[in-house]
């Protein structure tokens, strides 16, 4: 009987174990499903944004004509029996300079006819968003070059290319020679202030006289360049495309302001795919336009990646040194245990607290002091005494240092005692043992810590909002002017970009798909950085796996 009882108990625990296994597997499957579902949702919305749908022309019963893209159809929510089951569509009509709003809702009963004419064009413009309409005439210096849809379309590509080249040379003049003159002038102004702050003596007045001469030269050079630039700008606005919208209103658009001319309805599959890829490239490599609702997000990608790398440079040495001390040098006791508990607790502090600390300590205290000591001539404009990429990276380094300490300690603990003792027995000092034997063997663990820290840092937004992340920072923290890397500059971040475009943008409707695309890119950037780190770790692990045995 006892035997029977034992078997049945074993059987019941076995069954329980099976149930438990299924539960675990189920939970894992659910997690995976959620993650994959989220990625698919973001991916679908984000990637669909770049695909060109066909453009329809709609005539309403009251005679109004509209051209646009259909963005969704839904049932009209009403209890009114007359409208029962009626549908309405959201039409992107663009032409913001003519209509004010980008979208318009149309009820089924309002619509007379829907057509998709071949000759309708979509112009992607630098300002005011898309223009939908028909081409009427192409003018150069006031005289018509081509008239009628087909003739214009034939003549346009050459002129457009020329104007694009002109635009590029304007930009290179602006950022090249003209930028240099501006940079020199600003430097001169600051030098002058510094000289004046030093006080009056013979050397100061000599310096000032010299500066005045340089200033005059630079001003002269600036005027020349400005005149050249104005001439080029005039040429840019010389070629004008006359468009007619659906309602018959004409609009003159400078060809130099057009990014792209698309005829969505007569485009082949190959052209569609090329357009799609072209838009993705533009999105990833371009600069934002129109208050971040159009254009690309390159500065945000660059800011995110650079910030994460800077953070890694700061956090890994600190974390590893702390772990080394805790594991190799400190004697285990209440003190070390207290430090360990503190480190673990630090990992649980809300990130915004680190942000506030970063603002008070790094920005105001350290940054403010640096400004007073080295950038006094620029005050009251702060240089380091305001948020910047350096302070943001250091704040995030503080935030992620516990992760690195814990991972590095585990890595160090995993190095077998025999290896250390062997090294010591061969006559190496303790430092040599740690430096040559223990650290290399523990490096995969340290790299794991770094990967975790990078993943956490790339997704963190809240603390950065107060230590240097901004909506728009068109100049990257790296450029061609000495000292090339400008750690005091503010930067853009993908996480904040998502928040900004989604919740702060003036044109929420039009920019919503951009939120998904940016989110997709952020996920991609995090995965990419982790992937690189994991490859590095595996290589390190392999090279030490052979030497450790």
């Amino acid at each position: 009987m006892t035997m029977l009882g034992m078997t049945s108990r074993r059987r019941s625990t076995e069954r329980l174990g099976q149930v438990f296994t299924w539960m675990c597997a189920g939970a894992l499957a659910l997690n995976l499903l959620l993650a994959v579902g989220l990625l698919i949702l973001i991916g679908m919305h984000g990637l669909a944004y770049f695909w060109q749908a066909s453009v329809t022309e709609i005539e309403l019963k009251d005679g109004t004509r509209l051209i646009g893209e259909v963005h969704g159809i839904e049932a009209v929510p009403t209890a009114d029996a007359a409208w029962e089951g009626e549908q309405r569509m959201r039409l992107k009509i663009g032409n913001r300079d003519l209509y004010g709003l980008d979208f318009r809702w149309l009820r089924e009963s309002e619509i007379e006819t829907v057509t998709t004419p071949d000759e309708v064009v979509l112009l992607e413009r630098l300002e005011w968003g898309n223009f939908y309409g028909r081409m009427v005439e192409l003018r150069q210096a006031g005289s018509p070059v081509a008239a009628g849809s087909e003739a214009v379309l034939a003549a346009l590509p050459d002129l457009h290319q020329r104007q694009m080249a002109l635009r590029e040379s304007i930009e290179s003049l602006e950022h090249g020679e003209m930028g240099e003159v501006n940079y020199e002038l600003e430097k001169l102004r600051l030098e002058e202030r510094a000289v004046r702050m030093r006080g009056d003596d013979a050397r100061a007045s000599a310096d000032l006289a010299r500066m005045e001469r340089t200033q005059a030269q630079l001003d002269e050079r600036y005027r020349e360049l400005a005149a050249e630039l104005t001439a080029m700008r005039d040429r840019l606005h010389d070629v004008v495309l006359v468009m007619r919208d659906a309602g018959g209103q004409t609009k003159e658009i400078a060809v130099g302001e057009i990014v792209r001319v698309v005829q969505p309805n007569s485009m082949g599959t190959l052209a569609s795919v090329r357009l799609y890829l072209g838009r993705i490239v533009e999105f990833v490599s371009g600069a934002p336009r129109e208050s971040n609702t159009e254009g690309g997000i390159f500065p945000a990608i660059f800011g995110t990646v650079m910030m994460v790398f800077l953070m890694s440079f700061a956090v890994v040495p600190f974390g590893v040194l702390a772990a080394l001390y805790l594991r190799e040098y400190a004697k285990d006791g209440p003190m070390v245990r207290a430090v360990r508990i503190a480190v673990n607790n630090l990992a649980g502090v809300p990130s915004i607290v680190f942000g506030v600390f970063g603002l008070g300590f790094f920005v105001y205290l350290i940054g403010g002091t640096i400004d007073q000591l080295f950038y006094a001539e620029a005050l009251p404009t702060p240089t380091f005494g305001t948020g910047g990429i350096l302070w943001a990276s250091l704040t995030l380094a503080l935030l992620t240092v516990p992760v690195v300490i814990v991972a590095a300690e585990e890595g160090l603990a995993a190095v077998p005692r025999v290896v250390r003792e062997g090294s010591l027995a061969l006559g190496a000092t303790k430092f040599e043992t740690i430096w040559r034997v223990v650290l290399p063997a523990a490096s995969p663990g340290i790299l794991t810590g770094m990967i975790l820290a990078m993943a956490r840092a790339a997704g963190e937004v809240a603390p950065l909002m107060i230590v240097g992340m901004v909506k728009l920072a068109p100049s990257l923290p790296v450029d061609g002017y000495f000292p090339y890397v400008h750690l005091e500059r503010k930067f853009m971040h993908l996480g904040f970009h998502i928040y900004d475009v989604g919740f702060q943008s003036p044109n929420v409707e039009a920019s919503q798909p951009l939120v998904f695309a940016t989110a997709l890119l952020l996920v991609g950037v995090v995965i990419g950085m982790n992937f690189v780190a994991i490859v590095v770790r595996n290589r390190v692990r392999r090279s030490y796996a052979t030497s450790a045995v």
Partner: protein
Amino acid sequence: MKRVWIAWTALVSLSGIAGASPIQVDEAVAPYAKVGGVAGNLNSIGSDTLNNLMTLWAEGFQKNYPNVRTQIEGKGSSTAPPALIAATAQIGPMSREMKPTEVDEFEKKFGYEPTQVRVAVDALAVYVNKDNPIEKLTLPQVDAIFSKTRHCGAAAAIDTWGAAGVSGEWAAKPISLYGRNSASGTYGFFKENALCKGDFRDTVKEQPGSASVVQGVTEDVQGIGYSGIGYKTSGVKALSIANKEGDEYVNTDPELVLAGRYPLARFLYVYVNRHPDRPMDPLVREFLKFIVSREGQQIVVKDGYLPLSAKIVGQELEKLK
């Protein structure tokens, strides 16, 4: 006081508009004239209503001065005065006037008042979902919807759309409120002008940005919220507002706003730190000049706000001399 000014603006600028829609910038506003030697960092911290305008202005300004680095933060008008006082920003955009206490704080640190520049006109619109049949409200009604104190004189609180004057199936639907967080100048302006300085209800869902108010109302059929007219989308409807029962209901058409007839119109401001005896930092001066130039005011129109008249532009330019 404020409304008088706006009426004034209108008298001067109406001749330029001549009923044309979209609205045009006053012909008498001079285009921007470039000068040499403008480069450096320009930091702006302040209003979120002005956030997009600041970004657009910065983009335009950079066309003239490619080497200016502009950095824009917009988390609410209340963040502008501390930033100006701590000198972490040279430019403080605000969607309301500085409060006397804020001006005092500034004066305590620097010994002079901050310089105020008017940069655009905004109509604070009361938005409802596009499917909502309601078209108009009086200010006391708006107060009765948003406020728990009802200082504007409404007899009873309005909790359902029926009480706000909608009949049929909508009458029983409860009203769902959307508003801004208290750091926002829009919050302050609405509290002062639509709630007669009363308190908001606790049920107002405070949103972090003007666009999220509009989005909330777009998604929530029973929603009502307030935001600048520049944030209007096709998913919402801006209501006509009357000062009180019996007055004329006025919508947010640019002409009516500039004529001073829309009750919730306001100026948008930029504050700067300018020592009265010293020349202004050329970077800040040129940026402000750009804002009140024809190009700058064209950008105001582009973002959905209303431009200043030539008269006001003249007054503001005087301050920048």
